[in-house]
């Protein structure tokens, strides 16, 4: 029997924001995956901590200065990030462009701090298990930082080359969502790297 056509979807929009968009779910899926990685790496940190006293073995936790600078800047970056997110949702081209450019610059600054942060760890990955796990945690977060920065850069370049349609604004919003993740994921890692060793004393 022939099917009966009971409706027409051609009037539906062809792009939307947040949970209405397919890409958003994809981003969420990857956030879930990477969040799991962070949680497990954190678990490995505690597991190894329980197996060695003192912690860190050389008794000197990393200097607070750079890591805290990084944390403050990372948290402050949430302000332009939220702003860019709103601009994208409102489909304001100029504000979105500014927001993206700002985020690219902040990301760059963060990566520069991060480069020096590795040196303040005061331990090499091949010194002992403590060194291995703190390098692993910092490296993991750096990978996410760099990845999202490249993504932001691409979007910035694109946004300055073209006018944007709603689907592109939606991409920008998804990128902002991912940046939230990168920022929030940093906080527990910051605590693990800098504060847990101090509290264990």
């Amino acid at each position, binding site marked *: 029997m022939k099917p009966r056509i009971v409706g027409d*979807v051609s*009037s539906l929009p062809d792009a939307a924001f947040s949970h209405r968009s397919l890409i958003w779910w994809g981003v969420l899926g990857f956030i879930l995956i990477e969040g799991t990685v962070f949680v497990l790496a954190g678990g490995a940190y505690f597991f190894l901590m329980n197996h060695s006293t003192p912690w860190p073995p050389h008794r000197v936790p990393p200097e607070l200065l750079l890591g805290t600078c990084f944390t403050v800047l990372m948290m402050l970056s949430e302000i332009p990030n939220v702003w860019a997110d709103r601009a994208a949702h409102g489909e304001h081209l100029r504000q979105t462009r500014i927001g993206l450019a700002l985020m690219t610059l902040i990301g760059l600054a963060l990566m520069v701090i991060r480069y020096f942060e590795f040196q303040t760890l005061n331990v090499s990955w091949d010194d002992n298990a403590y060194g291995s796990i703190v390098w692993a945690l910092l490296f993991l977060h750096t990978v996410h930082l760099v990845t999202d920065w490249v993504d932001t850069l691409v979007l910035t370049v694109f946004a300055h080359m073209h006018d944007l349609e709603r689907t592109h604004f939606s991409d920008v919003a998804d990128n902002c969502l991912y940046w939230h993740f990168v920022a929030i994921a940093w906080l527990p890692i910051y605590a693990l790297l800098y504060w847990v060793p101090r509290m264990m004393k």
Partner: protein
Amino acid sequence: MTTALPREADPAEITAQHAQLTRTWGTGQSLFERLATVDHKIVARRYVITAFVFFVLAGVLALLMRIQLAQPDSHLIDPDRYNQLFTMHGTTMMFLFAVPIMEAIAVYLVPLMCGTRNISFPRLNAFSYWVFLFGGVMIWIAFLMNAGPETGWFSYVPLAGPEYSPGKRTDFWAQMVTFTEVAALAVAVELIATILKQRAPGMTLARMPLFLWAMLVTSFMVIIAMPAVMLASSFLIADRLIGTHFFNPVEGGDALLWQHLFWFFGHPEVYIIFLPALGMVSSIVITFARRTIFAYTLMVLALVTTGLLAFGLWVHHMFATGLPHLGSSFYTAASMMIAIPSGMQIFAWIATLWDGKPRFMTPLLFVIGFIVIFVLGGLTGVMLASVPLDLQLHDTYFVVAHFHYVLIGGAVFPLFAAFYYWFPKFTGRKLSERLGRWNFWLFFIGFNVTFFPMHILGLAGMPRRVYTYADGLGWESLNLLSTLGALMIGASVLLFIVNAARSLKQGEPAGDNPWGASTLEWATSSPPPPYNFMHIPVVTGREALWQPEPRQVLEGLSPAHREVLCTSALAAVPDIRQHSAEPSIWPFWTAIATAIWFIASIFDARAVLWGSLPVAVCLIAWMWPTPPRVLQQRTAP
């Protein structure tokens, strides 16, 4: 809109739309188009065939091992080769066959069952296949070059660490894990997005076929479980290449960290393989019992519970490591509890058959074989969950018997059932029923002859993973029997291949819905056209195709460019027309770059850094947004 709705579809219009849709969605014959294709059916077909080839290869390894063990003190295979054999057998079966083939079948069926035109992230899907292929080929080339991993599919440290596993063998293994897990994670994300956002209008969560539920739960499990093994294998390869100390007890590391991470993945892995199989079984039982499933809601609950509980019992692989006893008791209880949802599902299937009008064709035979075998495996699983008993049975042939009952019974039997069931949809032709029955009985008898004696061997003291055993321990005749059974399984699989090859050319043409099934994949032609559905089906009940005629559909998706209909996640109300990605060669290049990245970093740790550059370039090319100019051309009439 020219005509008032509702209306009957017009045949002339259908012909015209078919031509246009085929142009929009089709994949040409040129090499470039084949490499660039993002059609989920083509990708899934490649995935299934590749995974099946790995199944056969790993089966050959199993036969070699069985031949070696057929008699005591055998000198056919030296210990180094034997260790590579069982490592590759386990690795291939778990990482390159079981998980990928389940996901591959889902990649084929999920969009069809959802009633949509393509999977949610088609390019990611293509990338996933290439990465999987390259990872599998890499480890097999390494194996054939005598550099196959030799420390077991579980690669326990310190045996797999830098001190006791010299050379690059274990590094290949660790990178193979990275390859396959990247592939599996990508597919999991696609499946979740497809199932939640692309279901046909009206297919609320409560009307979702159980296979979709199974894949949804499985995909979430993949997302939680697979990162653990990626993290673990990264730690391992870092220990081996750049001298980190994650697993070196003298410098603060611990060998048990590996085991925790590995089994946090490894146990859910079993359910990741098993849940899709349950979904397949439900589909087949409904179709062949010709009755809706008994206790649908409980079945869904059982799937979800199994998925959750699966994460609470990894420690039962580690009872012999000297963990505190009280903690172990918790894991005993958790492991046993998983018998409740499994028992419920078994009951529901048999009840459906009992109350239905079953037709005993090959798919259903395999399902019955599944029940008989799997339940036995489940019960020995209950035994292994008991700490004291496990201390006797752990790492013996009893365990080998147990997990082959669970994995072959619980996954391979349903998989063969699925092949017989969906082969007509994949190819347009049915498999031979006569050969199918031979296939089934040979497999069923061969399986039991092979693996039942292993229970006894385990109780009689035979440990796993031994390349030979001494004469006079009473293990000789049972091992010989087991080897004979393995040959029967081999013959049965060979028969299946013959059946598939013959039926591809001479099989009985199937038609759209040869079994009178109720799910949406049977609402389109066999094999489905590149665009899957000309009109998006509307679902009015749990068994979509068993609802009163005529079938209801929607129009309005553009035939001129790639659009899929997104619906709301819970109630499946039409929401947006989402653009679906065009074919692109970049996923292929990205996969090549990724392969270079991973393989180079086996030999040079610095490749972790420089190798990421080509990948980044390829990814940017792949993800580069479509400029507005093109978008506007597309939406113009």
